[in-house]
Each structure stands twice: as structure tokens, then as C-alpha cells.
């Protein structure tokens, strides 16, 4: 009798057994993923076509999506989010790369110290960090006003988080400090992992520091750059906690973001369908941005 054997020298019957066991090991995670990611996502998309509130659930087709484009508060939130992304992503990427370049080849102690300092806001957690920033920016007893008034830079205390002209920049400054930790750590690793023989060869050939950076280091760390850009873009699009804890979207919606406005609609106004439509649109925008970034940033290492 001929027993079927696969290319690994295992009979098909045993292979089937192995597959079954493998799938069983995967099952808990698949169930978890289905229950808490896929099904809620599908429900979110489904209910975005309904007038879904505490008191009702009625199909309304594309009305929620049409309303989005007529809602000045949403449009303001959208443009604020866009500003945050456009400012934050290049700033975080360039600063992280700069810091990483400066410290990656220093002694282990120095590198670790800087890595720790820049990573501190990330491990501290958003809420304590934001509370400290709130004290710093406080109009009445904030240290920023105290310093600037005493230095004669400003005449009287400013409500940094209460002025249209300053609030969004305060949010961006805090977002910046909480966003750079991980990219810096990643850039330090990526730069340290570049093949030293290639760098030495370039040095021997007389390549300048700038040329070495652009022609060897930059292409080598491209996969890291892609990751940093995509993750920072997604995090910036989803900026919520800072807004919720610091400005509630104000003053006059000047710091409201899509995520914050979504939250207001879902949990203050109980307009679940409308909020879900915002969520779907945000996911589409983030997806489009990510595809664009993947397509435009060549991530393959090429010297």
C-alpha cells in the first residue's frame, strides 16, 4: 500500500493532524481578534448607515456621510487634524533622525541616557504627562507664564490653552514630546545596525559626512523611516487624549480633532451612527495616507 508523503517527508494524514493542532493553537487569538476587532469594525461600518441613537435605530443610507460634509464643526475638526498631521509627522521624523544621528555612535552610557530621557514621556503615560503640561500652560499659576512675564517677554499672563492662536501649537508641542521617544530609539538601532564595512569603505574612498549620510545611511534606514512616518501619521490622525484632557476641542473648536469630535458625538450626544460614519471616514483617510506613504517611500535597502 502506498502512503502519501509530502515534501517534508511527513505523511498527509500526519500533516493534517499537525495543521489541525496548529489551527487550534491559533483559535483563541482568532476568536479574540474576531470579537474585539473584526466584528466591532463591521458593526461600526454597518451602523454608520443608520440613524442610531439611544432612542432609535433607523436606516438612513448615506445621510450620515452627507451630513459630515455639511457639518462645520466636523470640517473644522478635519482641518485641525490635517494640520496636526502635516506639522507633526515631518517634525517628529526629522527631529528623531537628527537626535538618533547625533547619539547612536556615542558611548553606550551616553546613548542609553539620552534614549531614556527621550523615551520617558512615552512610558510615563499620557495622563500624567498631560497633567504636568496643563500646569505648565496654566494661565493663573503656570510656570511658563511666570518665566516669560519675569523675563519681560510677555506683559501679562496668557491662557495658552484658551487662545485660538496658541492652543493648537501647545497641543502640537505636547504631541511632539510624546511622539519622539519611539522613533529615536528605532533610529538609534537602525543607524547602529548599518554595516560598518560599507561606511569604512566610503570613508576610505573620501566620501564626505553628508554624502555618506545621503548615499549610505539614509537608504539603509529607509524601512525604519517608513515605519516611523506611517506610525506617526496614524497616531497624529488619532490624536484624542491630549484634546480631551486639555482643551475639550476649544476654544471655539480650534483644537477639535476628528477623534475628539467623534467621541463627543458618540458619548455626549449619543449619535452613534453619525460617530461611526466619522470613524469609517477617518479609517479610509488613514488607509489612503498609509498606501501613499508605502508607495512613495522606497523601503528596500538600495545603495
Amino acid at each position, binding site marked *: 500500500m502506498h502512503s502519501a508523503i509530502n515534501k517534508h517527508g511527513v505523511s498527509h494524514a500526519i500533516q493534517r493532524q499537525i495543521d489541525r493542532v496548529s489551527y487550534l493553537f491559533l483559535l483563541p487569538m482568532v476568536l479574540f481578534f474576531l470579537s474585539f476587532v473584526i466584528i466591532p469594525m463591521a458593526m461600526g461600518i454597518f451602523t454608520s448607515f443608520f440613524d442610531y441613537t439611544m432612542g432609535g435605530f433607523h436606516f438612513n443610507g448615506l445621510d450620515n456621510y452627507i451630513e459630515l460634509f455639511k457639518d462645520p464643526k466636523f470640517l473644522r475638526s478635519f482641518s485641525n487634524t490635517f494640520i496636526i498631521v502635516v506639522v507633526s509627522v515631518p517634525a517628529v521624523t526629522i527631529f528623531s533622525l537628527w537626535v538618533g544621528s547625533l547619539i547612536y555612535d556615542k558611548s553606550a552610557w551616553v546613548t542609553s541616557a539620552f534614549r531614556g530621557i527621550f523615551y520617558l514621556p512615552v512610558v510615563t503615560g499620557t495622563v500624567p504627562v498631560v497633567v504636568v503640561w496643563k500646569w505648565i*500652560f*496654566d*494661565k*493663573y*499659576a503656570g510656570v511658563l507664564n511666570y518665566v516669560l512675564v519675569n523675563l519681560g517677554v510677555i506683559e501679562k499672563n496668557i*491662557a*495658552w*490653552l*484658551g*487662545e*485660538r492662536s496658541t*492652543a493648537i501649537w501647545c497641543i502640537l508641542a505636547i504631541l511632539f514630546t510624546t511622539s519622539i521617544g519611539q522613533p529615536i530609539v528605532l533610529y538609534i538601532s537602525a543607524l547602529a545596525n548599518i554595516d560598518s564595512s560599507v561606511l569604512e569603505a566610503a570613508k576610505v574612498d573620501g566620501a564626505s559626512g553628508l554624502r555618506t549620510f545621503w548615499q549610505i545611511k539614509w537608504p539603509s534606514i529607509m524601512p525604519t523611516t517608513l515605519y516611523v512616518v506611517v506610525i506617526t501619521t496614524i497616531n497624529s490622525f488619532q490624536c484624542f487624549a491630549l484634546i480631551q484632557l486639555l*482643551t*475639550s476641542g*476649544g*476654544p*471655539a*473648536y480650534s483644537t477639535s480633532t476628528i477623534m475628539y469630535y467623534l467621541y*463627543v458625538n458618540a458619548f*455626549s*450626544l*449619543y449619535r452613534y451612527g453619525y460617530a461611526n460614519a466619522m470613524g469609517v471616514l477617518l479609517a479610509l483617510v488613514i488607509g489612503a495616507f498609509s498606501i501613499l506613504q508605502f508607495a512613495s517611500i522606497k523601503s528596500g535597502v538600495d545603495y
Partner: protein
Amino acid sequence: MGDHESLAFGGFSLFQMVEDLAVFILGLDLALVREALGKAGKIGISVYCGGQGGDQGTRALVSNLYGATIANKTNTRYTMNSPEGARALELLKDLEKKGYIDAGLSIAAADELQLFAQQQIASTICWGTSNALNYATDAFTQVSVPFPSNDSVPSLEYLVNGFCVFDNKDAGRAEAAKKLIQFICDDPEWGKVNVVKTGAFPVRSSFGDLYPGNPEYALLASWMKYYGGYYNTMPGFAAMRTEWWNMLQYVFTGDKTVAKALADYDVNSNAVFK
């Protein structure tokens, strides 16, 4: 008494040197007040509007000044968009522009209460008995006064707390829940204890004076006659609240005129009644 005396209400507080609160708010002798507060290095009042928390305080302030109403008597429309409401907002905006009051664009009631407790700010418009307990300190003595109003008849905000039973399709459980609630509320001994523990006042007069010998509570209890309409259970209450503090922001930032801000508030708050 501590280093200064404060007035607080659903609260308002100013220093001893300011004898007449209405004088301050209605702007009859602002220079004097500003000078006095300035010398003390204090802010008189903050119309906080950095968030939703404690928004009832700012609504009470605005509505009382010239007799505007927050909702109509049948609770079928939010009515702040009125000449009285506009006049009050114009006054507050003008006072803020002149530097006599502060627009708390970056703070909500919790921050304002902390500023009050820290004596950074001389008055609070969101005081309650629970705040009095939380911020109890020897540093100042609170004095409660009604909100200022041009007709001297304040309309006070209040909150009625109660229980509800969820219909979970189990009559037995619902019955048990009702029995527990009845005990908590009606028991001749524990009913009173429960009210006292909340620091609030009973909704029934049969419980009598639960705070004998406490002049502050006696004063607050005497103000029940000033209670205004109860709009917290009106349709669209959540939307109206969101619109309210944002409307104040529009007014104080100058993004909208008072008339435009009120008109938009009116449309958005009353959308539910269409």
C-alpha cells in the same frame, strides 16, 4: 476666620472690601472693585467655559443677570436667545474686555473650584455643599450669596438626584431593587442618614431640619424658594450643554457676535424639537 473672607455660592465670593456683589457684576463701580482686587492680586470671577463640567454655574450667572430663562415653562424649548440673555452676555463680554472679569477659556468648573480653594480667584459660581466639604480649610471662610440679578430675585439651579430601576425582564429583581430603594429613601432612621451623607437636602419636608445648628445649611435651605425651572430632563439636554459652553467660547474669543452665537446656540439646542 482665616486670612480673608470669601463669599461663595452656587457661589460667589469676593473679599470683604467688596460690599455689594451686584455693584461689581452690574458694573456700577467697577473701577473701585478692579482696584481693590488688583491690589489683592486676585481675579474676581472667572466665567469658565473650557469644558462642560459645571456649566450650570455659568448658565445661572448669565440667566440671572437680566432675568433670561434657560428653558420655557413647558420645557419644550431652550430660550436663552432672548434680549435679556443677549444683554447679559454683552455685559460679561464687555467686563472681560475691560479686564474686570476673566474668561476661563481654558478651565472648567473643577479648575475654577481649585483656583478658588487656592485663593487665586476670589469667587466661584459653582459652589455646592460637597465642594464645601472637599475644600474645607481654615484659610478662608466661605460666605454664600445668591447670584446677582437686576430684579433681586434669583433663580437658582438645583439638581434632583434619584434612583432608577433597569427593566432587565426579571420582575423579581425589579421588585427587590424597588424595595432596596424604598428602604434607602423612606426608612425613618436610615433615610435621613443617607441624605445627610450626601450633604444635600431632602426632597420631602417630613424629614425636617437635618442640619440643626448649622447656619450655612439653614441659609441654603432658605433659598429653596428661589429654585427655578428644572430643565435637566428635557429632550436635547446633552446637546444643549455642549452648545452652551462652546457658545460662551465663541462670545469671549470674538469668533461670533453675541447675537450670532446665541442664534446658533438656539438653532442647535432646539434641533431636537423640530
